[in-house]
């Protein structure tokens, strides 16, 4: 069970800052998040694919969604999920 931290609109939409959910891979974790919090689906996915510019970090390292979704997840991992955000 990895620690998942939610940010920006994902917090407002789910009412949570942090979750712990099971999952062997990032893809699985994301699937579990959507099952538990269906309100987040529209912010994260577009036609089954991860929305462009959703930012996934694992222990601070940004994942390339094209290749990183199969990355395996361990108990010590901290996953960060940011919806598309911007600033100066």
């Amino acid at each position, binding site marked *: 069970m990895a620690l998942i931290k939610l940010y920006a609109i994902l917090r407002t939409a789910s009412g949570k800052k942090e979750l712990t959910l099971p999952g062997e891979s990032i893809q699985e974790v994301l699937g579990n998040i959507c099952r538990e919090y269906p309100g987040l689906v529209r912010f994260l996915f577009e036609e089954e694919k991860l929305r462009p510019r959703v930012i996934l970090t694992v222990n601070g390292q940004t994942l*390339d969604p094209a290749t990183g979704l199969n990355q395996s997840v361990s108990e010590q991992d901290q996953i960060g999920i940011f919806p598309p*955000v*911007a*600033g100066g």
Partner: protein
Amino acid sequence: MTGWNEKILDIDLTTGSIKTYPLDMTMARLFVGGRGLGVRLLWDLVGPGVDPLSPENVLIFTNGPLTGTAYQTSNRFSVSTKSPLTGTILDANSGGFWGMQFKRTGYAVLIVRGKAEKPVYIEIKDEKAEIHDASHLWGLHVSETTSRLGQDRNRRNVLCVGPAGENLSRIAAIMNDGQRALARGGPGAVMGSKNLKAIVVEGSGKTEVADPEQYKFMTYETKKLLAASPLTSQALPEFGTVVMMNLVNNVGALATRNHQHNMFEGAEAISGETLSETYLVKSDACWACPIHCTRISKTEKTGEVEGPEFQTTWAFGAQCGIADLEAIIEANFLCNDLGFDTISAGSTIGCAMELSERGYVDSDLRFGRADLLAPTLEDMAYRRGLGADMAEGSWRLATTYGAPELSMSVKGLEMPAYDPRGMQGQGLLLATSNRGACHMRGNMLGLEVLGLPKLIDRFQVQGKSSYVILNQNSSAAIDSLVLCKFASMGVADEYFARTLTAVTGIPYATGDMIRVGERVWNLERMYNLREGFTCKDDTLPTRLLHEPAPDGPTKGWVVQLEPMLKEYYRARGWDSNGVPTPKKLAELELQEL
């Protein structure tokens, strides 16, 4: 040609003379407006060796052909001068309403020269300009000055300096509409040195458009694009720029405690999410902008005030080791009211904190002392005690007390929030920005962190220079139109080029518009070289080049500047000393300069 106001207003405060003459339209075609026009005029008007705080320095306010058209974000305007903080070219741009009103007066450019004998303010009503006595305003805070001079949202707008600028702090800002700033590089001190308290504008002119059909189409498409982008339609309006705090911290690129660390344990407490839950009242916007990134926050001490922005929250937050959001909102308000650049002010305080903790300076300042922010800012504005040294900025402060390496600045300008040990491209950008360490002159945040347009490896070094150069050129172009860079988070450059074409009637291909940016960049470079800057000044603080980042995902990294810089000079068409070659200057039609 349409779009441009074709007149320059030239005021000499020494003699009191007020002149108007035509804008050189060949120059306008090449440099467009805003930052571009500003640097071109500054090149002629302020030669090498001029003391920025002397009457020989000049303030050049510019708008552009798009300003005031009501195209999305067409509210911005620019000031160009020689920086009292860095000695480089200074251009700064600001939003709000003043720029739009300035365009309505009928002028493209306002040049202010010399020095008034006693405090004055300038009032421009359509094409009529007058110099008035301002002795009853000198010493007043920005908010008081702004309301006394009749600030009225869409109809009459005030630009002024506060006590910081009056007292010639080198990190003083020029404030417009009460809470918007022309800040980096200390233009407030230049204005203060001229005994110029304020400039008030009131106008009724309208900007004509050459091709109304095409212009209407561009506005419609831009509306669709901004609404479709989650950045401009959700993230910014809902959370403001402070939404960056958690993300930048998460990847280990949040400079902390004067860049001693690259992650801040208090990031969550000062994040956009926390602001939304606590002190945020509502969002707001500049004129003609649908993005609404402005925050309106409320605390007991300040009441309802504008801000804070990400950089400000970082500067008084992580950089000072402070996790008290309320204190930060108050500090931001004080900066607006006294007239300070928030990044430089916060980072200078952070520098003073480290100097103090290490025993270079005898003061109470310590990281985490949120209670000292407000009194320190007051001391800086009025030059009391250590505040007198701090008002000079972190470089002069640290040098005075024997530790120049503890100023986190480039060419004297304090660095922004991004610790470049976690973003190599950003490091190259900060080292090469023409006005000193500046992220707003080509921010690599998009490519290295946000995935906009696509995520590239932030630790990669080879090939970074091409991205940095494109970003620098493109943002210089946007600064010359003059538009807001947040518009470019949803809208591609090709739309801006077509809008510029539709407004002016002059065909600017996308590449032509970006070339305007490249031209501006190279001229700024030439200006700095003429002032005596060399490639040795394209560097970063020693800490970032030699002390490995201690925290999290960025741990162990330093900025590998040298290979990036070498590649950058070649890719820009400059020689190995970073001097634009004659061939490059000719290509950009700069050869006579």
